[in-house]
Each structure stands twice: as C-alpha cells, then as structure tokens.
C-alpha cells in the first residue's frame, strides 16, 4: 500500500453543523497526496453519517470509537491510525485554505531537521520571510519573551510523524495538552514558523476554549506546565534565562492570587496559592 505524504487527522464530537465544510476544505487541497482520517468520539448527532457520505473518496477513512475517549486521547487515537510522513490536525469545526497542505509540507520538507511547523501571525517582526527555522533555545525565547508561539491549537500545526511518535503524543490533560506537546517536541528539535492565513479557526459558543476561561484549574495547570517546562533538566534556555522566565511567571501568578484575594474570592486564591507553593506536585 502506498503511504501518503500527509495524514489529515480530524477528531470530532457532535460537530454535525460544521464537519461537512471541514471535510470539503480537505478535499479541495491543491496537494492531493493525503489521507483523511476522521475519528468520531461517539457523537450523538449526525456527525458520523455526514462524514461517511464522503468516504466514496478512497482517501477518506471514518472510524468510530467504541467508547468516548475525550479530546486529546482521541487525537492520539487518530495519530495511531496515520500512515503519512506528516500529521496535520484539523478540527471538525475549522477549515484549511486550499493551499495549506502544500505550503506546510513544503516548509517542513525544506527544513529536514524541523519536527513541527506552526502558523505564526505577526510576521512583520521578522527580518526574513517565512518559513523560518528556530533552534530549541530560540523557540523557547520566542515563546516566553515575545509572543507565545506555542499557544496555537492543533489546527495551526503540522508535525513530523516520527517526532510525534518519539514523544509519545499528547498527554491526557484537558485544554493545555497542545501547548504541552509543542513544548516537549521543541525541547530537542528545531521548529519551523510558517506564514499565517493557512487555516481558519472558527469561534463559536460550543468550543472548549471558550468555556475554559471560567475554569480556574486551567490557569493553575497552565502555570504548572510553564514552571515545569522551564525547570526541566533538558530545557533549552540557559540558566539566566530560565531564572528570568521563572520570575516573570511567578510574578504574573502572584498578581492573580492578589487579585483574587482583593475581590474576596478566597477559594480561588487558595487553589491558586496551593499550586504556587508546591509546583512540583503538579506532575
């Protein structure tokens, strides 16, 4: 069996309203050498029927999980089924512009050492046009001192399959497992910044990222993740920079605690404070 260049991985849970558009954006790609793997996480609407209506195209394969796995475990499941050299996640409520796969694979092919490509928005800051390869140290600097390049979601990335498998895929945390994986991949391997405007990220009320804002545990976990990333023994930043980032993170976090106390949200303050005192317990 011929292996495709890219595996497009689309995980879906109750996305009947959007998945048709997402699939069509894949089928309209200028790059034809892909497989589209759709893994339904036991939707209770018509998501699967809609997905199956596209499986006349031999490049489209539709799977349904035996039980609901949840967001990131399902992404790992989709990656297990992939045969391509590159993994391209596309959420069932987003779309890719027609040239997305072509450009992203070109960029990663041009930089053979790079493990991951990430769409980057603020190109005017750079002295050269994209694609730009960043060493692990530069990537971490960019993320922690300039703009958070690792805050992008899975739809904005393309990953070399071997690198994904070496890292063991996503950890099973809700919300921040994407950033966590990018940080882990970029610890050892260079990354490529790709030009923006390749994917379109839909904002709607049913999204995880919209509801998370209210979620205190996300703030705590994000802080713990950052602390772990910069204190990790393989953190690519030099010691001075590690300390600088750590201090910056702690200061920002302390401000959150003070604000919570100020507004009389003592429970929140306590929850935040507990993580501040014992960041090592977060692992």
């Amino acid at each position, binding site marked *: 069996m011929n292996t495709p260049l890219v595996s497009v991985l689309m995980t879906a849970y109750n996305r009947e309203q959007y998945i048709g558009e997402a699939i069509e954006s894949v089928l309209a790609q200028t790059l034809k050498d892909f497989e589209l793997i759709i893994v339904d996480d036991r939707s209770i609407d018509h998501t699967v029927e809609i997905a199956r209506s596209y499986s006349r195209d031999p490049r489209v394969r539709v799977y349904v999980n035996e039980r609901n796995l949840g967001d990131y475990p399902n992404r790992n499941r989709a990656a297990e089924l992939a045969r391509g050299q590159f993994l391209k996640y596309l959420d069932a409520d987003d779309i890719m*512009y027609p040239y997305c796969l072509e450009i992203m694979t070109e960029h990663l092919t041009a930089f053979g050492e790079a493990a991951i490509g990430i769409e980057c928005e603020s190109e005017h800051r750079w002295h050269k046009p994209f694609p730009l390869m960043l060493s692990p140290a530069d990537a971490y600097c960019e993320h922690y001192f300039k703009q958070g390049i690792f805050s992008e979601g899975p739809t904005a990335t393309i990953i070399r399959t071997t690198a994904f498998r070496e890292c063991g895929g996503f950890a099973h945390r809700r919300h921040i497992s994407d950033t966590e994986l990018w940080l882990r991949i970029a610890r050892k391997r260079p990354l490529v910044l790709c030009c923006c405007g390749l994917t379109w990220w839909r904002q709607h009320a049913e999204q995880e990222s919209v509801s998370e804002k209210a979620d205190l545990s996300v703030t705590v976990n994000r802080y713990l993740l950052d602390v772990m990333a910069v204190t990790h023994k393989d953190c690519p930043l030099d010691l001075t920079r590690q300390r600088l980032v750590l201090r910056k993170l702690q200061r920002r976090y302390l401000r959150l605690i003070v604000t919570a106390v100020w507004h009389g949200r003592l429970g929140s303050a306590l929850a935040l404070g507990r993580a501040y005192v014992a960041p090592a317990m977060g692992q």
Partner: protein
Amino acid sequence: MTAYNRARYIAEAIESVLAQKFSDFELIVVDDGSTDETLEIARRYVKDPRIRTLLNEKNLSDYPNRNQAARFALGHYLKFLDADDTMYPHCLSVMVEQMERFPEAGIGIENEAEHRWSRPYPILLSSAAAYREHFFGRGILSEGPSAVIIRGSVFREFGGFLPERHISDTEFWLRIARKHSLLLCPAGLTWWRQHDEQEHRRGISRGPVIARRYQVAVSALMAQDCPLGAEERGLALQQVRRKYCRGVLSAIARGRLSFVWSLYKGAQETQTQGPG
C-alpha cells in the same frame, strides 16, 4: 514593481515573482532613476521573456511612478509589489482565483484580523460595508500597495493614484471602494519588509503625514457619493476629528511646535477644501 535605489532588495523581490505557482503574468519593473545598481540587477532577469525593465527619463517619485508602471501593463489584474517586499509563492494564484470568483470586486486587499469574521476568506464587502469596516473597525484600507490586487479596468476608470507623496494608497482604495465592492483576502500572501530607508519609517510620525491622512479621511467622508448614510458619516467624521485633535493636543503638550503647526495647517486646508 516600482523601484528607486533598491539594489539591496530588488533581486529577492524579483525572484519571489518568478517563484510564483501562477505563471501567467508579466513583470514590469520601472526604475525611477536610481543612482545605485537597481536597474542592472533587474536587467539580469530579462532572459525570462515575462520580464520588462524600464527606466524613467526623469525621477517621477513614488505614486506617479506607480501610475507609470500601470500604463505599461497588459494584464487583466494589476498587482503592485514594492522592490523591497516579497510575495509568497501562492500569492498570485490565490489573489487571482479569488478575484475571478467575485467579478463584482474592484479591488482585493489582504486582511489580517481574520478571527473577527464569522466565515473564511475571501469576504466580499459592499461599498458601505467596506467604509464602515475601515472607519469603525480596523482600518482595512490602510494597507500599502503590496497588499493589494486591482482590476486593470477599475484602475484606469479612476485614473490611478494621486501624485501626493503620502497616503495616496489609502486615498485611492477609498475612491475605488466608493463605487466598487471590495474583497478581503487572507493574510500571509506578501511579506512586507521593515527597514530604515523606507518612506513609511521616515514619515510615519511626521506632521505632514498625519495631516494628509486626516485630509484623506475627511474628504472621503464628505464626498457626495460617500456610501455611508448621513448618521454614520457624521459619526465617522466626529471620530476622525477627535483623533486628530488629540494628536494636536499631545503635540502641544510635548512642546513640538513645528509639528503642531503642520497639523494646524493640515486642518485649515481640509476646511477650505469643503465637500467634493
């Protein structure tokens, strides 16, 4: 591609055109009497029959030279690319394809703020919607020529850019958008280089530029065929004037008197101009 003393960058710009996935183009390079090697470098590429290089007899300056380049153009669409910028390889194919899909659009402009839109690009805006978005939203018409594709017939219908040194790009887009629909294209098609020799860098904070921007905004809003209704027009004018006054006040506060003077003169000129 208009060029004046761009020996450092023009090769990269030309190569970005030759690397386009869309191959049905002509590249017209008009040198405005550079005193460096700009023209020699450009001429190295004329082995490719799609490239023509021209030299102006006298220096025309920025916008008149853009009109000059457009006069030589045979294409259905005009795509400006400054000699210090580059296009990504998919730029022409994407812009042309999107303009073909929306024949009612007179002009296509790259747009950065995509998350505000509830649908993917390209997004067609009526004249009124484009004006609304420009004046009340995120200044979609402030993009420079490198971010734009124009239907050739539309360019000629309006006679091209005004010769004024600053803000003549936005002025022209406003004029086109008054009569034609506008297409917002995705960002990431061109790369705009920032460097010290730029007009933009040298001029952006200076009084005359701000004054001219104000004049352009006011005359677009006062024009008889301004696509906004009376109420919105009034609101936009109020907003533009307030911002300008704030600029004058902060210049006074910082004691930058020549700056204040040029802003004051700018406002005077705008008043005497009247509607039209």
